[in-house]
Every structure is written in C-alpha cells, then in structure tokens.
C-alpha cells in the first residue's frame, strides 16, 4: 500500500510540474462554462428550466470523459521511456504501479469536479435535489470518471506514443460529447442525429447527473430507453466499461512489461 502511495505521489507531482495537465481538466472546462452559459446560452432553449442549470451536468461529464487523456498520456510516457524499467527493477509489486497511477488520476479528477461545481454555483447553477440524491450524483460522476481513467489507461498502454493517445481522445470524445445532450436538448437535433444522441452513453450519464442534481433534463417524452432510465442505464454503462476495460488493461500492461 505504501508503494502505491509513493507512486501516486509521483504522478501528482507531475501535475504540479506541468500545469497544462491541470489546465486541461480545470481551466478548459471553465471556458466552456463561460462560453456556453453567456454566449450560446441565450439562444439554446431548455423546455423545463434555465440553460445554466442545464449546462453544468453536461460540462462535468464532458470534462470527465476528456479525463481519459491524462492517464493515457501518463502511462504511454512511462512505457515509452525507460521509467517503467527502473520501477520494475525495484523490489515492489508490479501492480502498485497501476494502482498508484489510477489513484493519482482519481485525485486530480476530484479536484476537477470540485472546481467545476464551484464555477457552476458562480454562474447560477445549483443543486435542487435532496442530499442523498446529490451524493448519488457525485457518486455517479466519480464512477464515470473511474471508468474513463481506466479506459484512458488502456489506450495509453496499447498506444505506441502519447500522440496516439491524444489523437484517439479527441477523435472519440469530441464527437461523442457534441453528439449528445451535453450542450443542447436532443429534441432540437435533426432525425438520425437525435437517435444517435439518445443512445449515446454520454447522454445517458449527463441525464442521470441532471436528474440526481434536480436540474432540468429536457428529456423528450418519447426518448430512447436509456434516456428514460438514465441512472440505472449510466451505472450499467460504467460497470460494463469497467468489466471489459480493467481486465484488458491489466493484461495489456502485463504484456507490455514482460520482455
């Protein structure tokens, strides 16, 4: 356990040394908050409430989805340079590397969630639900972040360079978050795109977070099943991702660190 903490501290130290890493998960989403809340907010109508209250759930989830980039780049860097060999030649368990890495990324994620919640409160977002529901919302965000961190770690473990990781992250997360209900209600989307958005797991997590925070969800009456049961469906998605990705990551990591 103490090995894990020492290695986690190393990763957190990286975040301190390259502030860009932190900016990705704090300043950038803050820009999105301001941009959407004050620039586009006026033209996007949310049937069941105020756009600013609607927006924050979407930005939180988008930020956590992009959160797969940090762990991916970090592990690809360690595997690409000799660092992993140094660690492997020390008398520590090989698994402590992975657990330390995940732990550090989770810590960074918690910070991002806190910063965004604070920013949300400043622009007029609020938690309108009961305490247990609010805790549930944060619990779901943490579960989703955990799944994304593992997914990023898998991509980083299999990638041969950090550029591949950022490439994959941008190519998947941008379309997935924009083709969702993160910024606009799905009802406003043209047919075809609307169906894609409603089945998109991102939409489902966003809707679940909004539901649990008591924010407007703008879920259309005739929405696809996952959007009608967003909380259950989101938990299902996260568990499914973790069930697939965690064993794959461990196997890929062991393979890349043998020979």
């Amino acid at each position, binding site marked *: 356990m*103490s*090995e894990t903490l*020492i*290695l986690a*501290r*190393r990763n957190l*130290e*990286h975040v301190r*040394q*390259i502030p860009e890493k932190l900016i990705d998960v704090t300043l950038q989403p803050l820009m999105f908050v301001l941009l959407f809340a004050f620039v586009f907010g006026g033209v996007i109508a949310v049937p069941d409430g105020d756009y600013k209250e609607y927006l924050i759930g979407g930005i939180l989830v988008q930020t956590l989805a992009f959160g797969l980039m940090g762990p991916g780049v970090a592990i690809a860097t360690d595997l690409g*340079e*000799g*660092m992993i*060999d*140094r*660690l*492997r*030649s*020390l*008398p*520590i368990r090989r698994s402590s590397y992975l657990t330390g890495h995940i732990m550090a990324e989770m810590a960074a994620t918690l910070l991002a969630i806190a910063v965004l919640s604070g920013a949300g409160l400043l622009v007029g977002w609020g938690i309108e639900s009961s305490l247990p529901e609010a805790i549930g919302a944060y619990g779901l965000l943490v579960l989703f972040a955990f799944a994304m961190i593992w997914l990023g770690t898998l991509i980083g473990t299999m990638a041969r360079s950090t550029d591949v990781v950022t490439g994959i992250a941008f190519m998947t997360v941008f379309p997935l978050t924009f083709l969702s209900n993160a910024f606009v209600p799905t009802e406003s989307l043209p047919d075809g795109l609307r169906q894609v958005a409603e089945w998109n797991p991102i939409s489902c997590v966003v809707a679940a977070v909004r539901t649990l925070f008591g924010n407007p969800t703008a879920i259309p009456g005739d929405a696809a099943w996952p959007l009608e049961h967003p909380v259950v469906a989101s938990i299902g998605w996260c568990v499914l991702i973790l069930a697939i990705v965690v064993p794959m990551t461990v196997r890929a990591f062991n393979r890349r660190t*043998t*020979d």
Partner: protein
Amino acid sequence: MYENLNDTTTDAGIRAEGLGKRFGDFTALEDLDLVVPKGSVLGLLGHNGAGKTTTIRILTTLSVPTTGSATVAGFDVISQGAEVRKRIGVAGQSATVDGLLTGRANLEMVGRLYGMSKKDAAERADELLNRLGLTDAADKLVKEYSGGMRRRADLAATLVSTPPVLFLDEPTTGLDPASRNDLWEVLREQVAEGVTVLLTTQYLEEADRLADEIVVLDHGKVAAAGSPSQLKQRVGGDRIEVTLADAADAGPAAEALAGFAENEVHSDPGQGLVTAPVRAGTRLVEVVRSLDAAGIDVTDVHRRDATLDDVFLSITSNPKVEAHS
C-alpha cells in the same frame, strides 16, 4: 581470474548458463555462459543489436529467457525475481529517471520504494547527489539536465540501495570524455567496495579499462571471451593505419608493415588502407622510413587504439583462437 570460473564460491556474483532469447523467429541471444565472481567487473562488448541489452534485461528479471538459467547474487532470476531485485541496481540504456521530478525527488522516491524511511531516503539522496556532483542541480527538474547529468542521476538512482550487484547498459554512450572519466571513477569505487558489476559497451577501450573479463557478443553469440590481456594478445595493441596514395601498393605495404606487427596485417585495397597491430614501442618514423624505402607513397600514417572492429577482424582472420567460452 579466468581460471577461477568454476569456483563455486563465486555464486554471490552473476552466473548464467546457456542463456538464450528468441523474439518470434528471431534469435537475439544464444547459448550465453557467464560467470562474474563477486567483486569483479564483466564487460559485455558488442555492436548495436549484438544482444547486450537483452542479456541485461534477462539478468535483471525484466525479461524471461527462452532457454538457460541464471543466478544473480545467489538467486535464480526466473523463480526468485523478487530476491534478485532486492540486490541489484540497474542503469538502463535509456536513462531511467523521471524527467518531471527533480534529481532529488527521483532519488528520494527510489529510496522510499526500497522501503527506506523519509529521513533515510533524504539523507541517501543528499549523499549520492553530492558524490555524483549533482548538488547544484538537485532541485532542478531532470528534464532540464544535460545528457551527462541525466546519466549521473541515473547512476545515483541505481546506487540508492547500495546494491551488491550492478548492471549498467552502455553507461557512457553519448558522454563527453570528462563525464566518462567521472563515471569510470565512481564505478571503480564501487568495485573497490566489493560490488559486482556487469556493464555493456561498444568501446573496446572502455571494456579494457574497467573490466576484469570481457565477453564479446556478435549477433547474439559469444564471439570471444577472456581477460583484457588475453584479448589484447589476440587482437594486438595499438594500430598503425596507412593510407596509400596508390591502392595497388597494398601488397608491398603490408609486407613492409609486417616487420612491426605483432599479429596479422590487414589490408583493404578497395580503400587503399593497410592496418597493422603494432608491437609496443614501435616508432612511427621507423614505419614511415621503411615504407619510403620500399618506394611506397602514402597520404597518411597514424597510430590509433584498437577498436571493437579490430577485435572482430582478428577473430575472423584467426579462427583458431576464437573458441573460448
């Protein structure tokens, strides 16, 4: 020292038998036998791709051999990896320090991972930073270090736990001569303290200076092995290299040089180059005189150290003396 190879009291060092490694169809290492008695230095000499890193990775438990077995500090590298890792220090070919930590933080982290207390790790880090001349740069990020400083930081990380067995993969490649000398000195100190060292290099001179025993690897196979003086005997010492004005003179030039050579003279008519391993004390003027007396016009005559290529050249031209393992 070579006579002691079968001495069983050398178990605390490094011992390998029939070590081999295949990557798919490709054989990177074949049938390597090694014995490095405790407190001695083995130099693994070979060009790029010879199998040096492969050997180090197997001996440091980073890679599993396809054939053979090995022990390090008395423990089996395959079945007792954890015990081996407690007793070794490894400096990989690409410097294996964290660029995003300071030199000090790197060493402290490694110390902590060895189970040292915060205080002990900090003291050890200070000591090593000082020893390797990194005190001024201790609190700078390693990514800002020069190549030489990075190597030294890497060596410091390797020494944190005071390991009895050290593995260094091309520790001086890319270093300027001054840093190279510094590093050699640190290594000699370690050896004087009884540490066993296996280092790889592409430079004959380096192996000669540091190693008690040299194993020459070529395409994964042992091409020659022995003490530096045995190898020298076979390869000869300094080289005199003559560049001919007229490549057709290669034959007569080789004859003229034969008088000074302690081993076979090698001529490369294509390049108009004749190379002779010369006896100690040979004077360059005498060589020039005798070439002149034979009526041979030369554009350049110079003396240089024997290189790894000379080793290979002498092995292939004297196949009889090759066998030694």
